[in-house]
């Protein structure tokens, strides 16, 4: 079983290199990192009208906010990459008939699903962690700022990518690859909007909106995981300010996700894997 799963996964890794998928995405990501390095350098060497450069404290505060915002942009890119990978490996292969020659081979359909999931999650995680780590290293090199828990933040971002990947792969078993990728991105956006709404509703004590947001965050846990990444990147001083402005700021997380929420997210992921296997087992090709 493991041998078949690894064989299927190996095709995904080989495709990513042969089709220059990862190098292309990596090059564009490195260009973005270069642009942010240039921007941070401009801030670090900024001279105000009186001729003074920005103070170290001011630079740290500004960079800590910018890092969270950059991480959010990166989170969107990770989700797009995940939707693309998921649609490419499952939906496209169903549509173009490549699976017709694979499914009749002596392997089970669930091994195909698990192999494709393993291959894609490995690719997405490698991309997220390597590019994210380079970005944080560049931030440190230019400004000297290191967020409190960078590794935890990267793991949460990988979790966000996994949510989009699982949704795309599951849907693409039943609907077209394009529709599945599009739906996964829309759900990612919906979860983020619900997260925004929750932040504002909690500042205004609107329980109805909070409950609606909670339901969305349970159905699509990407925003809950994103908040974990944001919290891991925020310095304690930023969280400690705590006032109404911080509570209503959609880019600031005042607490990490509860263990119960992380357990729910893990259960959600397992349920989606099982659903994908069940749907693919019943799919006529």
């Amino acid at each position, binding site marked *: 079983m493991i041998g078949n799963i690894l064989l299927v996964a190996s095709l995904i890794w080989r*495709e990513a290199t042969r089709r220059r998928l990862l190098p292309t995405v990596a090059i564009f990501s490195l260009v973005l990192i270069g642009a942010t390095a240039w921007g941070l350098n401009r801030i670090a060497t900024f001279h105000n009208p009186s001729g003074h450069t920005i103070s170290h404290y001011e630079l740290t505060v500004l960079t800590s906010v910018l890092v969270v915002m950059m991480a959010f942009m990166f989170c969107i890119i990770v989700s797009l990459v995940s939707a693309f990978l998921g649609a490419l490996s499952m939906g496209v292969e169903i549509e173009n008939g*490549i699976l*017709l*020659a694979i*499914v009749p081979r*002596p392997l089970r359909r669930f091994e195909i699903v698990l192999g494709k999931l393993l291959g894609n999650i490995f690719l997405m995680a490698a991309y997220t962690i390597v590019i994210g780590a380079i970005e944080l290293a560049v931030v440190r090199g230019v400004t000297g700022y290191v967020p409190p828990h960078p590794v935890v933040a990267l793991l949460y971002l990988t979790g966000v990518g996994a949510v989009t990947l699982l949704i795309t792969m599951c849907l693409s078993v039943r609907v077209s690859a394009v529709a599945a990728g599009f739906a996964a991105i829309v759900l990612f956006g919906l979860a983020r909007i619900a997260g925004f709404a929750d932040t504002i509703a909690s500042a205004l004590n609107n329980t109805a909106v909070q409950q609606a947001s909670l339901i969305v965050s349970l159905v699509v846990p990407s925003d809950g995981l994103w908040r974990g990444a944001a919290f891991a990147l925020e310095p304690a001083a930023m969280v400690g300010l705590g006032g109404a402005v911080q509570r209503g700021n959609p880019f600031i997380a005042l607490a990490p996700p509860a263990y119960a929420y992380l357990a729910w997210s893990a259960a959600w992921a397992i349920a989606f894997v099982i659903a994908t296997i069940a749907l693919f087992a019943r799919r*006529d090709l």
Partner: protein
Amino acid sequence: MKRGEIFGFLGPNGAGKTTAVKMLLGLARPNSGDAAILGQPLNSLKARHITGYLPELFRYQEWLTAREVCRWHAALLRIDAAKRTSHIDDILQRVGLGERADERVGTFSKGMQQRLGLGVSLLGEPQLIVLDEPTSALDPVGRADVRALLPQLKAKGATIFLNSHLLAEVEAVCDRVAVIDRGSLIATGSLDELLGHLALRISFVELGESLRRNLSARGAAFDGGSTAIFGHIDESAVPALITDLVQNGAAIKAVQPIRRTLEERFLELLKEE
């Protein structure tokens, strides 16, 4: 199907041929009923292990080379790693891709991709080879190659299930055929059973009286000229008949077997339905 035969599977568009093939191979789920592949339960790993399949819609990873596609399928089939390379070389040679084995599938023409699909279906020397329209993208040379390859596979003990629209091709290579229409079997049997008895037309340079009597005694009719027609003759008796006539001094100009073509019989069957 019987072991070791080449079995033709015919039917008009929409009859359910490809659906039936897909159910046999686990690509589609039957609503009811059951089947077995060479005694193995449908969809069992054992059945999959002894079956090779060329889909009608053949598509392989265009970013791999032909050899890499074969290697990947060979790994799935657990073909002994020591024998894998020579086995793949041999198969690619047999399907005419020996020279292009290390080129990417994306650079292949449709016909070459179909040749690759045929090669992939032969990996591991399967006991059952299911070919769904195996020559649809091939040029006349490729079709002739496939026609020559199928009897070789049969001689090695493989059973071949051939789903094709090309009735002349089926007629040329198949031992038995089945015809389906709207999901139901409407005829099955050997070509002789399906096409009826053989008739024979023999043209002579000159048809003398003694030869005419000789032929009449054997049941021949005449067309008024110098041609005799046997309306019903056992195919195995033809060589002896011709030898006997020649030994008796007959100057034979031509011997022409007459039989309904599979296409004629196929159209008749559909009309009867």
